[in-house]
């Protein structure tokens, strides 16, 4: 998965095909389980993702009421969280430093974050982490 994301196959994360993403997550989630990753170890990272997600979907009156086109509104909204996305990386690095099991996840996510330029890229990032975590948790139920 890491190889694929860091490859030159695509520049923006939105071009990560959903099918490939799901199939990769399906393999990667159980892998993390084997490495004894616990979700509370990356809690802060997941919280941060969720916060950004909420912020992005929040109705921003100022933007909403402006004369901008729909497309521009999206851009403006994304601009507000853009810097914070980059801050996700240190959060992961911090967790990884303390726990070996977080390392491989951290590598994958960092590589993915590097390819986030637009809201669409961010949406795919959310899909990616959610899919990995879903398959990771599903390992418990097997």
């Amino acid at each position: 998965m890491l190889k694929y994301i860091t490859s030159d196959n695509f520049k923006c994360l939105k071009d990560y095909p959903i099918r490939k993403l799901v199939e990769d997550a399906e393999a990667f989630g159980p892998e993390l389980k084997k490495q004894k990753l616990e979700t509370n170890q990356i809690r802060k990272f997941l919280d941060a993702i969720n916060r950004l997600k909420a912020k992005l979907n929040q109705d921003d009156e100022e933007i909403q009421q402006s004369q901008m086109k729909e497309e521009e509104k999206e851009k403006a909204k994304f601009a507000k969280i853009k810097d914070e996305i980059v801050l996700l990386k240190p959060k992961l690095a911090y967790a990884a430093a303390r726990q070996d099991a977080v390392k491989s996840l951290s590598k994958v996510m960092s590589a993915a974050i590097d390819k986030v330029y637009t809201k669409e890229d961010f949406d795919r990032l959310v899909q990616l982490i959610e899919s990995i975590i879903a398959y990771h948790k599903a390992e418990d139920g097997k």
Partner: protein
Amino acid sequence: MMTSSQVALQVVQQAIAALAGWADPNNPLTSKLNFVEEYPEVTRAKEILGWKKDTEVGTLRLLFDRVNPSDELKQETSELHYHPLMPIDNDNKEYPKIPYPLNYEPQEEQKAFKEKIKKEVLESLHENWENLSLLMLILEKFGSCLSFTESDVALVDMNRATAAVAVALFDNSEAENISLIAGDLSGIQKFIYTISSDGALKSLRARSFYLELVTEEIVQQLLEELNLPRTSIIYAGGGNLYLLAAASNKTEEKVKQIQNEFNNWLINKFQHKVFLALECKTFYTNDIVNKNLSSHWNEVIHQLNKQKKRKFYEQINNLLAVRDSFGDRCRVCYRDDTTDLEQLNTEDDSILACPTCREMFQLGSQLFKTKAVVRSRHNNISSKSDADYIINNSHYFLFNQLPTQQIQNDETLFLINNWKIKDYHLPHSVPLLLGNYGQESFENQGNFIRAHELAEEAKGIKRVGYLRMDVDNLGKIFAKGLGDNHTLPRLAGLSRQMSYFFKVYLNSLAANRKDTLPENHKILTNDKNQKKFARLNLLFIYAGGDDLFVSGSWDEVVEFAFDIYQSFRAYTGHNPYITLSGGISINDVKYPIYQAASDSGESEKKAKANKRDSLCLFGEVFKWDEWLGQTNVSTDNIKVIAESKLYISKKEQLGLFGILPFVDKLFNNPDLGYPQSFIRNLLVTAEIQELALKKAKKEEINDIKYFLHLPKLAYTMSKLPQKLRSHEDFVLIRQSLMSPYNAPYFPAIATWIELLTRTQA
């Protein structure tokens, strides 16, 4: 003087003699006929149709096997099918058994069937030898499963076709030409379905019954005016009719005259909503048995359509013309051209309705008990009737019991869905076949069940279901389905057997599920739950010809749709070209019925748009093979998912495939005990997927459709209690549900279960 009925009678007697000769070679009938001189009309008709002196009755091959309306050779090397040897009878039951075809020729069964004929027919023939309608019934009852002249031509169809041709040659046995009369009542749907009112279900039923009588009245007037016996009817029902008559100016004049008279009456009665197109087409008599018949047939249908269009233009003129309007409208049909508005029924809050709507409402109250109808040209018939309806100057008297007194010579006695020979001893008794199953009301016995009762009887959510269904590509099947074998007896046989399914066997299927489902059927509710298994809470609104409109408790309507499809496919020998498409709408009791009719119609259209052979239910459209599903199957062996296979491109072994197997495993498995939240999570996932699909770029659609939901599904299922997850059946469910091949189905699966388990209204 010889009459046309005598000509018909002679043909019918000869057919009966052939039947008798097959059942018992020593019976005296054949020798009896040897002393009778054959009418020249009969001789010529037999000659044309290939009926020879030594033609014998035999077992009957399934005519549906022959049907191939496509330009290519048949897709599958199809099996040969035969009719089972059984009469159409309801002697000890309400409705006849469904004759599912056999995949072998019945041999050993012949002896018992011959005995049956000897006992039930031959012994009473002497005293009824001149009774044309009784002999016709015998041929229909016992001769629908036997062949004559050709292995796939039924005795009854050969008999009728020969009689019809002989009568068309009446007094002119060498006539070069013959005439096909075709009629079509258009606007029926409009008349039946565009009403809104209380007690609407039974009014709808009354309307469709009434139109059946109107069709019959048109036929009757044609027969009377053209001096034809009933054997001349090729097909009649549901607003369509085909008759054979002599090719003459008289025929054409009478046809025009009857059409005009009828349309005048229809305009008055239905305010331009219903229109009769009637045409007559003359062609070479010999074309009855060759390929040209099909082009004559298509030609006459083309003419009917032209008439309908012309009528549409006339209607526009009519609408533009100043018309009386009294402002106040009938609250049922919305007409505003009459001041004669009265309360629809005796209840205080009853709405105001026009005379026609009041009449239909009343008819709806009587129909449940009606067993027989007498048609008479005058109003003083000898038996005491329960109601009288006038259709273009003819009286139709309704009877809750068979009338005991002799009916007069110019009257006709219609026996509804009655196949009992003993009831046909009165002359001019004819069967009236109606797809008319209806559950009795629990609250108001002797009446049809009402919409709110249907809702209450439903499992889970308290809703009424409405199902519309019809045969795919019917026009094409009749126009070119028989290819080089397009002859009158086969064409008559095809339409007879098609309409039998909707008029006769659909009743059987509704009323007696246990004994009428085909082999290897798939069902949701098994007979451990006897009451729900029987799924009797249905009320047919219309069934006949090639289509149906059925209401009922929503859960039972859904199961009935699955039953109908499987039964129809078995009945037609699983011919890949003979399929059904349907649409179901599930509604609140208060939902206007015309809207429900239009919704289920829209759903049916969506099913047709899915390359037919499909069902639209819960807003989801799939092929029937996807709804019915399969268990323990390799994707290699599932034809219906060709597109998925192309995209997913890997072979899988699926424990469960499709929709019904999942619903069955989840719903019929009380010891699984999954929490309600599981189904709700599936529905939420379905919603997310649907939203994503709306926003998706074209190249992402398949990815989203088949894969996006999988992580969520995996997670949802991992959250379930340990005991459930380790349950053998659930392992199967989980593995199968996680296959992208089943991705399209989980919203329908979840919706179905959700509605079945919803406790509040």
